[in-house]
């Protein structure tokens, strides 16, 4: 499977990020975020998401690739499956992972987003990297749509609701967000339109006036 690619803003440039299913060894590395970024929600959520992944793995209810996900659904249409997606970038190797998303495929083929965390304090060339959370969310919406999922949903909290309101361009979001395929596609279309315009701007040669 080819990795999902999205672009983020880093040191004034638009750079690619890979978004893939995490293998067992990668989940172990995600777990160590708690030590590397102590006293942050992201560090705690990463460790807890990894814990949950290992628990589901012991129960035979996790997958580590898109092919595994498809095969598991083929074997049992009502399978409840968990997976952890990680974002990484060749140009930001020192971090190994930039973000994670822990998701579940429910028995009725919906996608649930349980954890979404961007590693705190990400910097490149001394400047912050931004756009990772939006890239992860837009990629998940795209993946859910391409898997034929009718619905993607998650619980929202006081701290996450404003982010979901912004990315879904709807308000208010209370303690639950539910998006259907038309919204998944809207998010993806908007996201792609913006990425294309930024990439075109980056690729444009400098003119001497």
């Amino acid at each position, binding site marked *: 499977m080819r990795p999902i690619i999205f672009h983020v803003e880093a040191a004034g440039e638009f750079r690619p990020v890979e978004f893939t299913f995490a293998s067992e060894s990668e989940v172990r590395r995600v777990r160590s975020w708690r030590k590397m970024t102590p006293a942050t*929600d992201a560090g705690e959520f990463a460790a807890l998401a990894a*814990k949950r992944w290992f*628990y589901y793995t012991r129960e035979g209810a996790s997958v580590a690739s898109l092919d595994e996900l498809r095969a598991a659904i083929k074997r049992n249409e009502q399978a409840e499956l968990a997976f952890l997606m990680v974002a990484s970038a060749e140009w930001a190797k020192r971090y190994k992972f930039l*973000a994670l998303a822990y998701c579940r495929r429910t028995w009725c083929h919906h996608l649930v987003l349980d*954890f979404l*965390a961007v590693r705190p304090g990400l910097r490149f060339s001394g400047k912050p990297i931004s756009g*990772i*959370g*939006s890239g992860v969310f837009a990629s998940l919406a795209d993946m859910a749509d391409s898997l034929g999922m009718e619905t993607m949903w998650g619980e929202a909290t006081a701290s996450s609701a404003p982010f979901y309101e*912004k990315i879904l361009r709807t308000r208010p979001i209370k303690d639950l967000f539910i998006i259907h395929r038309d919204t998944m596609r809207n998010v993806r279309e908007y996201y792609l339109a913006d990425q294309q315009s930024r990439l075109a701007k980056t690729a444009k040669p400098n003119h001497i006036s």
Partner: protein
Amino acid sequence: MKRKLTPREWMDDLLEYERTHEIAFASPRALLEARMIEAMDKARRPHRRAHRNGVAHRRKTVGR
């Protein structure tokens, strides 16, 4: 009527939000379940760290 944001404005708004807020979200139910799994794991883990990996037992030294 509120004007619809262009993709560029929408993303600028999101980028600004990401620059100023930590993106670390968890569903309360998933968080509770994960914490219970963690507590269960801790309770199940054997408490014999000092005796692992061939670490020699400490013995009282006998005074001469």
